[in-house]
Structures are given as structure tokens and as C-alpha cells.
């Protein structure tokens, strides 16, 4: 004999078992997809390793390690840039602005090495200031 309550019970049982089934199936589906992806990667890596196409990761890791150690051991880089007052490996020291003198190959004047570039810029008529001057003078 089935009354209204028993009908509802039946529906509830059907619903719950249906829902459990869905859960199980989706869990299985996810598992299959995951296994498939893992097998993909394993197969590709296996081929690369067997055919000798793999990169030498040990060497790369070694280089990374050396680099990390180097950065830890080296003093602040800012200290390195103050290199104008040291003695070089030949035992020489040099002034911050080079004071060798030679003749400009454009105009023949004597110029100090450290000031050669700004001199040449004007001498050759290059550079923004010089170009502006030329333009102004030739403008109509």
C-alpha cells in the first residue's frame, strides 16, 4: 500500500541515488582525464630522454647555483662604480678626465682627450646646438 509519504520517499531515494551516480561518474571522468594528461607528459618526456634530446639540466642548475652564490658574496655594486681612483693592473693611475693632448684631425687644434668629443661636435658642426645654428643661418 503506498500513501503520499511513501511516494515522496521513493522520489527522494531515486534522487539521492541519481545524485550519487553523477558524483561517481564525474569523479571517474576527472580521474580519466587526469590519467590521460599524465600519460601524455610521460610519453613525451620518455621520448625526449630516450632519443637524447633532453637539455643538460644539471649544468643549468649548477650555473644558477654559482650565480646565486656570486650575488651573495659580492659586495654592494655601488662600491664598484667608484673606480676612478684605483691603480690599474699595470700599476698606473689616471686622472678622472683624460689629459692626453693631441691634434684634432678636423681642425688641427690641440685638444685634451677627455674634452675631445664636445670639441669635435662643434668643430664638425654636429650636435643639436650646432645644427640649430646652421638651420637658423640658412633659413630664409
Amino acid at each position, binding site marked *: 500500500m503506498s500513501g503520499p509519504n511513501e511516494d515522496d520517499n521513493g522520489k527522494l531515494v531515486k534522487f539521492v541515488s541519481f545524485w550519487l551516480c553523477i558524483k561517481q561518474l564525474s569523479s571517474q571522468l576527472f580521474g580519466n582525464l587526469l*590519467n*590521460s594528461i599524465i600519460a601524455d607528459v*610521460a610519453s613525451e618526456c620518455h621520448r625526449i630522454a630516450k*632519443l637524447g634530446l633532453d637539455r*643538460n639540466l644539471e649544468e643549468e642548475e649548477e650555473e644558477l647555483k654559482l650565480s646565486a652564490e656570486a650575488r651573495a658574496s659580492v659586495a654592494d655594486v655601488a662600491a664598484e662604480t667608484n673606480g676612478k681612483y684605483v691603480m690599474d*693592473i699595470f700599476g698606473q693611475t689616471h686622472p678622472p678626465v683624460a689629459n692626453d693632448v693631441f691634434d684634432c684631425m678636423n681642425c688641427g687644434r690641440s685638444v685634451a682627450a677627455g674634452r*675631445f668629443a664636445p670639441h669635435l661636435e662643434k668643430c*664638425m658642426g654636429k650636435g643639436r646646438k650646432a645644427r640649430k645654428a646652421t638651420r637658423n643661418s640658412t633659413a630664409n
Partner: protein
Amino acid sequence: MSSTINHLHHHHRIDGQISPLTSSCPHLADFRSRNGAKPFRALQDCLRVKPPGGRAGIRREPSEVPRCAACGDSSPSRLYACVACAAVFCHAPSGGPSHASAHAASMPLGGHEIAVDVDRAELFCCACRDQIYDRDFDAAVVLCQSAALKSAITVQSSGNPENMRKRRRVDYRPWSPDVRERLLMDNGSSVLDCEIDRPRGLRGLNNLGNTCFMNSVLQALLHTPPLRDYFLSDRHNRYYCQLKNAASGGGKRNGGNGGGDNSNGMIKGVKLCLACDVDAMFSAVFSGDRKPYSPAKFLYSWWQHASNLASYDQQDAHEFFISMLDGIHENVERDRGKPQSPGHGDCCIAHRVFSGILRSDVMCMACGFTSTTYDPCVDISLDLEPHQVTAHGKTSAKSHPSSNSEANGFSSTQIPTTSTLIGCLDRFTRPERLGSDQKFFCQQCQVSQESLKQMSIRKLPLVSCFHIKRFEHSHTRKMSRKVDRYLQFPFSLDMAPYLSSSILRSRFGNRVFSFEGDDGDDVAANEMSSEFELFAVVTHSGKLDAGHYVTYLRLSNQWYKCDDAWITRVNENVVRAAQGYMMFYVQKMLYYRASAQVCPS
């Protein structure tokens, strides 16, 4: 799946050749001796490729859903079709139940051990329970995959396809001087003193006024082995060159445009030759004189060649490098009459040393049609990684117009990793999706489609210069931003993974096959010489417009810091920790180790 990784591989690279491997599975050898390669070729009819450029699978009918003949299951991740009888069975890893192995064992006369993975088109030995490889099978798969794709080689910037022809190579013959030659050498030259701690050619360069950008590159080039050897062996004799120019009535204008005439010029009427000034510089720097040298004449000549860069402002070292190579090329090229293949460096020493060939493949994502272009290059400019992880572990995306949009996938728990040169090269050769705003016209589809672009190196140069894009220029040519992030770079570098042959091979699933990129002498040359050694690093410190360039040189395995006129010795750790802007690598076989003696640091 059992697999043993052979650690000997990195000592003698096999490069996709499988002769040592067929011997590793006796069942495959047995199968082949019974049936030859016919069964593998017959499988071609069952190979289905998911377009475009997709993976190959095995299906008797295109719509077939493979099931295990023993248990009826279609869901296992690995289903194998027996090559002998075409029956399909499942297989579980790590010694689990395997209907495939059971099938092989059930055949009293054997011959059913070899099977093929229906989803991955990989051969499997059910007796050894391991994946195996066969050249003929791979060839069948590749042919099937490439039949699904069409391709075209568009040669845009590098001239005719004929330039890809084989070049005649000279066989290597060892040589030592005979008595007469030795006498000639002794009489005609002076012996270099071999002071290990004061190497020849190490000489400071005076800063002529904001010219450290030039000095830093010059130091690197003065110690670029093939370039140094060329000039020191008198291959460009400046006296002879000037005589020749004067004789040919060298009344050409002294280069440059605008900016007025050199009416005051003392050398008016003599043809400008940057290579002559470089020759003079080599002679001076290697003379043994240790007082810093002033490259004034060179600056003067260069400013005439590159008048748009001729100003007292601080310049970009990389820009100068390109300009200088161009200057050497221009002055030499005019004299040559024969046709040159771009990228092979027949034209001048600058290109002979630095020129390589890049390959660019653009594949239509709708039909798989691939368009290939070859372009010569004298260096490779690399972007730093576009992402940075902040202190809170959240990523902040920095947008680059050219960056790979695929990279926007970092999770917020990403551990900060160091940027590396290898990482930059990986990214440089990674397939990049050209977005919907960059559609490419596909010749096959006859419409613009979304495409996949991939770069690779067709031919390696003798010297590879890597330029790290640390400066972001705005369109007004004022430098707007500098990226100070540290980049790790190795002292030894193997470029093999970035060659076109490697990239192409990996695109086809690393099958054993002679790909299109495998022909020609370029590849033979590449395979002999993909190993490089670092010999110079140009670094930039400070801000954009108030910075300083310094070069580190490696001579006889000892590192020297070249800071304009000041040459000092430094520990290799200083170089490893430095902020590299341009890194110079030379092919290992050109890097002289014979005279290298390690100095106690």
C-alpha cells in the same frame, strides 16, 4: 612505464638518431626481421591528425571509439592496438593489470608484442612494458602530419631561395710550418711576450667625453677572437687600403649627410674607411704600450658614417654596436663584385663574425598552412620577463606590446624565480599566439586568420651577441625607462635547443625524421658548433641618462674589468653578479683554451 634515463646522453648527443635504441628491445628487432617495415607503413591509413598541426592518433574509422577487447572499457588512459592483429587492449602503469601484455603472452608463437598507443601514435612493447621507437614508424607519422599541413617558404628579406643551397666546404687539413716557413715566420715577426697576468691586447681606452658607450663595445670587439685574428693577421692593411683609395681617385664625399661640409678637413679627398681605423686601433692596443689609448680618429670616422648619432650626448652601446658593424660593412662591400648570400657573411668581416640567420614560421590556426621567412641578423635582442612577483605574492602584469599573452597565467602563489638568459631564449623561440588584432593573411584560406608564430635559429654566427632590452624608448627617442632586474647568464651556453632543426623536430613531436630544416651545410655546421663560451659582458649601471658602461673581459680564464682607462682584475663572481646588457659568446672551438692557465684568484 619503466624508463631508464641514460646519463651518458649529454656527453655524446644522439640528436634523434636511434641506432642505439632499436637494439634495446629484442621484440622490436624480432618483429622487424619477421615483417620488415611494411606493417608500420600500412598503419598510415589509420593515422588521423587533428588539425591543424595536431597530434596523430590511430583509428580504423575516423569516428571509431577504441575499446579494450578483453574488458570492453573505453576509458583507460592508455589503449594499445596490436600491430600484428589490430586488436585493441588496455594497459595500466606500474605493474597493474594489462590486457595488452596478456594478449602478447597468450600467443604461443609470439609476434604480438608490438602495439601502438591509439591516442598518441607511440609504439609500445607489451613484453618489455615500455615505449619503444622506430625510424620507419616515425617517418610514417610525420608524413601523415605534414600532409595535413601545407607550407610555403616566403623569402622576404633575404633574397632568393637559391641562397639556401649548399656551399662548398673545404675539408679540414691540419698544418704545421716546415723549415722554410718557420724561418720566414721567425724573421718576419716578433714573439709576443707571454705574461699571464698582463695579457697582450689589454689596454685602457680614454673617455673622450661621454664615450663610455663606445669604449665598452670597442673593448668587447678588440677581444672578439675571429675579429681580433682577422685584423692582427693583417687581413685589412690600412696602408694598402688608403693607397688603393687614393689611386682610385678617392674624391668621394666623406660620408654623412647634412651637418655642413668638412671644409676644414685635413683628410678631405681620402675615402673614409672605418675598417682602417679599426685596424689602427688593433695595432695600437696590441702593441704592448700600456698607456690608455684614445680612440679619437675612430670617433671622428664613425661620426662621419653615422651622422645622426654624432653628438656629445650619451648614446646607447647597442645602437653603437650595430652602427659600427654597418660602417665596416659599407666600406668593404662596394669593392666586391660577386653575389652574396645574406647571412653567410661573404660580404665583410663584421658579418662573417656576427651574422646568423633567423627563421620565422607563421602557422594559420584554422588550416595549418605555415609560412616561413628567413632573415639575417647580427645579434639577438631579448625581452626580459614581463612579470614580477611583489612582496605579497600577487603578480603585477607589465604589458609589453610584443609580449606573449599566454604568459598571463601565473598564480598568486608563484615563487619569485630569477630571470635567466636561457629563459629569455626559451621565450624567444616559444610559439606565440598572434592575437585577433594581429591577424595574418593565410594563402590557403585567402582570409586573415589568427596565427601562431615561432622563431628559431637557422644558422648560428661565429660570435653570438645577446642584447637585453633594458631600455624602453619612447617615440620621441628620449629614453623613458630602464629595467634594472638581474639576469643570470651562463659562462658556457649550448644553443642546440634553439636551432631551427630542433624547433621543427619538437613541433612534430620529436619524431625521428630528416626535416626540411635538416638539409644544407648550415645544419651540419650548427651541429658541430652549437656550444659557445662567454668572453665579454657589457654592463650598464646607474640611471637612464646618467649611467655608465663597463665591460668585463675573459682572457686566459681570468676576468678583467675595463672601465674606460682603468683595467683591473676581478673575481668571476663579480661578473656573475653583474647586470648584463650585452653578452658576447664565441663558438667553443674558436675559444682558445690551449694557452689558458688558471690564475689563482
